[in-house]
């Protein structure tokens, strides 16, 4: 393997620190990825040399802060395939970005309009639409999930119709790792004049996204899952859409003028960035995007898929283990969920913790998907570029111990 995982690991200070006396095997990357020195240093540099409020400060620090913030926007725009920077909006997180769309774009919808969501969506891509449905009477239409844990695009014709305004689905499932067939979704939407939003929370951590090629209308992702800081997320949307959308939150910097009688709105992206934005976190996310753009994702892809295969082979040898998700490596990313007969996921995760292995257990904020498979939860392994064979083997050893203990 040409990819030097040991060198990459050295960029992540946390990976070198023992946890409770064990080496850390961090496989909970889908919940939050770890962050490299490049990001930590960029934020510290900002905080100690350029910290100020952005926009309209005429002093040197304010100019530097504005440059750092707008530079981060340009970095994100490049990471997303070279979209115009003005189409990139910084939010407090992926959830905040989806809420922005649900409230702002949603306010343009009418009772009886329909929104299609899949059954494998994260709660963050369900609850804001449910709130919109409660508020203005749009209808939510669930798109089913196959036995392999994929969004069933074959069912699109039954679910999408002339009343469909938006199809909002996960680019990659945070439970099964399945990559959605974007082309099929876009084709179905275009057929009825609907828009498409992709929740890229689990896709962005695996390298640059070519939005122009995908042909969608909205894209969102979270900083902290993409090696950046907490408190920052991204909404990308086509300019025409943003220009037609009313603001979400109100405050400083998003206005044209303010009197007690009338207020006018600034153009995008400022219209959607009320108040002081998360400048430091945005600077960190910009650094994370630059860091990701500097990696060889072909090599990392094979590295990640090699580890995924090793994991799936290992689990196949455990009699009581079964996968929730695609059985192979096609059309997926390295997010793997499994269930052990007779051992609850929390107990699996707790025993893994005693081996220094960090995974997530539970419903993963995807209760409708848990119902679809009639399970309470899964144990989930999410592989990042810095994971190595040692991480997978430690996990498999822990699974053996869990089975042994509860057998």
């Amino acid at each position, binding site marked *: 393997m040409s990819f030097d995982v040991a060198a990459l690991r050295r960029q992540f200070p946390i990976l070198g620190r023992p946890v409770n006396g064990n080496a850390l095997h961090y496989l909970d990357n889908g919940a939050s990825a770890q962050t490299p020195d490049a990001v930590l240093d960029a934020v510290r540099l900002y905080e100690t040399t350029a910290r100020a409020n952005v926009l309209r400060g005429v002093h040197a620090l304010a100019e530097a802060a504005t440059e750092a913030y707008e530079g981060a926007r340009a970095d994100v725009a490049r990471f997303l395939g070279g979209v115009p920077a003005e189409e990139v909006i910084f939010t407090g997180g992926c959830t905040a970005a989806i809420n922005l769309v649900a409230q702002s774009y949603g306010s343009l919808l009418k009772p009886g309009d329909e929104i299609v969501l899949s059954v494998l969506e994260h709660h963050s891509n369900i609850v804001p639409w449910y709130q919109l449905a409660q508020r203005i009477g749009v209808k939510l239409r669930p798109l089913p999930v196959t036995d392999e844990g994929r969004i069933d695009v074959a069912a699109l014709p039954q679910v999408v119709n002339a009343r469909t305004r938006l199809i909002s689905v996960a680019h990659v499932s945070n439970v099964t790792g399945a990559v959605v067939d974007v082309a099929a979704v876009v084709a179905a939407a275009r057929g009825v004049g609907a828009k498409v939003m992709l929740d890229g929370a689990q896709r962005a951590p695996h390298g640059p996204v070519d939005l122009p090629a995908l042909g969608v209308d909205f894209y969102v992702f979270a900083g902290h899952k993409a090696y950046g800081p907490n408190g920052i997320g991204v909404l990308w949307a086509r300019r025409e859409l943003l220009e037609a959308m009313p603001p979400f939150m109100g405050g400083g910097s998003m206005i044209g003028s303010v009197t007690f009688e009338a207020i006018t709105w600034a153009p995008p992206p400022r219209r959607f960035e009320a108040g002081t934005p998360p400048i430091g976190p945005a600077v960190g996310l910009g650094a994370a995007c630059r860091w990701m753009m500097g990696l060889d994702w072909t090599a990392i892809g094979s590295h990640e898929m090699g580890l995924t295969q090793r994991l799936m082979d290992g689990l196949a040898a455990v009699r009581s283990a079964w996968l929730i998700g695609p059985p192979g490596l096609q059309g997926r990313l390295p997010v793997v969920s499994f269930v052990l007969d007779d051992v609850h996921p929390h107990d699996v995760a*707790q025993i893994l913790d005693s081996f220094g292995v960090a995974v997530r257990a*539970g419903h993963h904020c995807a209760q409708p998907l848990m119902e679809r498979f009639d399970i*309470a*939860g899964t144990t989930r392994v999410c592989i990042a570029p810095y994971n190595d064979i040692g991480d997978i083997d430690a996990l498999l050893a822990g699974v053996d111990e869990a089975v042994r203990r509860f057998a």
Partner: protein
Amino acid sequence: MSDALYHDRIVALAKSRAGAGKLEAPTASARRDNPLCGDRVTMDVRLDDQDRIVELAHQVRGCALCQASAVALAARATGLPKAEIGTLRAEIDAVLDGTAAGEGDFAAFAPVRPYRSRHDCVTLPFEALQDALKPR
């Protein structure tokens, strides 16, 4: 270390499933969910006319700690006056806080103390039972 957490008595309690099931004609019943993890406990109780718990059954969709706790609670609660369940709850809280050793099988939960995210797993059956016994 999970060896300390999942010691033999806890595993044995959880596996025993003692008291698991449903009652034919419960006087009261309550279901409690933990929305954070999706765990779910249903408690059925039958009271006599002095408000004493004469029978109790639990259905647990949860982890070993939750299973074990339901079993231990059922064993201790059966035969007690309804009014004394608060005392059991206080006892398990004290075990988890490290301020009491706990009687009988409640002592088995002492190793959970440092695992704060797991305390709710132990208390969920208690909450379900307390809900079931609430006046309505």
